[in-house]
């Protein structure tokens, strides 16, 4: 926050100098309606927090897509994991992101209040360590996240098998980004002119998986996370639309190789196989999730623990689905800021700090 450049490769990109110039470039462009969807919660937060939406020209609509893994996780997956956390002898390990997410009956925080042992971890290896330190317990890790996170979960499963940690399990609710983007493009009534693509997902998968979108005339720019990165990426997208030459471009070249991270992809693909997955708001999308491969079945919580979450249902009156597909914005929801607030969230888009509703509520919303 002070101006000393001491966090290398971060602070240098936070200098505000170029931001005004990049914004000017946006404003000098010819007016015409353009809808750009960002599909990364960190972009959603940055756009809200730094006031990029308000500062942008009125003809440029920035809409938030399904970029928050917490938000797209279905209630069925959340309820199933919560049921597992309540089984005797289980330690439920999760990233902090999931603790406040409400399920159909209760959230993980509620399960903890009822006696479930819930541990917040920063890394999957910490969850594996919990398993080693508690040999009499079964440690179940809630695997949520996109391609950025899935390889780290895969690495923990592989390490568990190698070290014989037979009390380590993963409930896999991972999601894959490119299939969801393709599905979005096919949704009737959804007009997206371009995608602002996620920087850290792309650090793993590279630029190629977005190519089919570009071939359909939809510019894709992989963006970094600072204000100047995002403004620059918006200009790159509009340059593409102006020239009619739609491509996959990488603004975040310092962190993303065109081919991604082959070692991470190999780790992910050796432990997980693609499967159909239910996305909140988008429904079931073919080959958009990850299931644990047969060889690692002994660590697959979904196979090992039988729980009944057939009572699952999505919260009534919540339009998270339409918000996740960019068809509505949070103030369109009757519950928003009235019966759904960060203190008492109803939908996942409010509870996750990267959720679109939370970002609106936190930084932009006015009564």
């Amino acid at each position, binding site marked *: 926050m002070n101006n000393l450049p001491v966090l290398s490769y971060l602070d240098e990109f936070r200098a505000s100098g170029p*931001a005004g110039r990049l*914004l000017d470039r946006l404003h000098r462009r010819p007016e015409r309606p353009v809808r750009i969807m960002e599909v990364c919660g*960190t972009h959603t937060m940055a756009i809200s927090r730094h*006031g990029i939406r308000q500062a942008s020209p009125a003809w440029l609509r920035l809409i938030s897509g399904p970029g*928050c893994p917490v938000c797209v996780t279905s209630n069925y997956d959340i309820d199933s994991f919560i049921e597992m956390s309540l089984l005797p002898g289980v330690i439920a390990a999760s990233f902090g992101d999931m603790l406040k997410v409400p399920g159909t009956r209760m959230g993980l925080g509620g399960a903890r209040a009822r006696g479930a042992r819930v541990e917040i971890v*920063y890394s999957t290896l910490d969850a594996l360590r919990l398993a080693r330190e508690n040999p009499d317990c079964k440690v179940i890790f809630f695997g949520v996240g996109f391609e950025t996170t899935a390889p780290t979960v895969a690495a923990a499963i592989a390490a568990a098998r190698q070290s014989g940690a037979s009390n380590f399990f993963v409930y896999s609710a991972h999601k894959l980004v490119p299939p969801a983007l393709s599905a979005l493009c096919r949704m009737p009534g959804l007009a997206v002119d371009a995608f602002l693509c996620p920087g850290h997902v792309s650090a793993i998968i590279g630029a190629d998986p977005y190519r089919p979108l570009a071939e359909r005339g939809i510019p894709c720019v992989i963006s970094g996370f600072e*204000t100047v990165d995002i403004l620059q990426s918006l200009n790159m997208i509009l340059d593409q639309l102006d020239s009619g030459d739609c491509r996959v471009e990488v603004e975040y070249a310092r962190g993303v190789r065109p081919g991604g991270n082959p070692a991470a992809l190999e780790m992910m693909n050796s432990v997980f196989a693609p499967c159909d997955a239910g996305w909140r708001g988008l429904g079931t999308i073919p080959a958009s999730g990850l299931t644990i491969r047969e060889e690692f079945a002994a660590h697959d919580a979904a196979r090992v623990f039988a729980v009944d979450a057939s009572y699952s249902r999505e919260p009534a009156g919540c339009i998270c689905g339409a918000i996740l597909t960019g068809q509505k914005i949070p103030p369109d929801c009757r519950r928003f800021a009235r019966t759904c607030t960060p203190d008492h969230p109803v939908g996942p888009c409010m509870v996750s700090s990267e959720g679109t509703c939370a970002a609106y509520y936190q930084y932009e919303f*006015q009564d």
Partner: protein
Amino acid sequence: MTHDTETVQMAHGSGGRLGRELVESVFSSALANNILNRLDDAACLEVQGRLAFTIDGHVVSPLFFPGGDIGRLSVTGTVNDLAVMGATPLYIALGVVIEEGLPLHTLKLITESMRATAGEAKVEVVTGDTKVVERGAADGVFITTSGIGLIPEGVSPSGRGARPGDAVILSGTLGDHGVAILSCRQGLEFDSMLKSDCAPLNSLVREMLAASVRVHAMRDPTRGGLAAALNEIAAASGVAIEIEEETLPVKPSVRAACELFGLDPLLLANEGKLVAFVPEDDAGSVLAAMRSHPLGAEAAIIGRVVDPAAGAGFSGPFRVFARTVLGGLRIIRMPVGEQLPRIC
């Protein structure tokens, strides 16, 4: 005389011989002063003038953390609550709930830390009580402290006192305590030179009030961080506050921890910082007084109080704003719930 009992036992809370031994060997010996030494049921105090009176419960895990421990925290917490009201802290009452099985040595270290901190703050612990609860019914030790202080003539900072035009002055870096505690949490461990800022602020406040008795409001941004403190003052005073986020002093390792775990320095706890609302004309002299004190060396003006009606186009209940890189304003809300490390 605790020769054969190395840990605190239920019998220590029985009110019998062991209980007396615990009080004498651990508490009254370390915290000795003329009033406490009488071990009466209540302390008799002679104080003339307007009193500030406060109470604060302290629970922290771990009990010892870089830069402090629960003993130091329990004294500074109450001293600082008195100090930000402009009061000179005088006396502290102490309530200790001990979990059965706590090593006596640990309890002595905590008490010794309370003694040292009370000496630093020039306050006396004049009365107290201990209870022992069964293992599992507490987390090591819980400490409640209550305190009284004397408010000097002509001084009246309060949470309701901020006025449009006031400069907002922060006494130093944000989030040191929150991140120091985080660095001890299982699974998050990291090494840094970072210590909790846990410190009694009454001598700093004395220097500030010597520079200007017109300090309108002060608060120590503990739980909930600066975001909570600013929202509370803005609401109580009926004003709006605009801060310049780029002027907020934050140590590199605190910023690093925030990047790493997805936290916001504005929401992290502090235990040795205060934020003051001072008329613009006096801001320079108060800031200079703060900077010449070791606990205010990095003090900075971080924003100003504005009329809520002129609130930058924002309506509704929002009162605290930060200016963004792009020149707009964003809302700083009252924080919700605990800050958890996150990966997205």
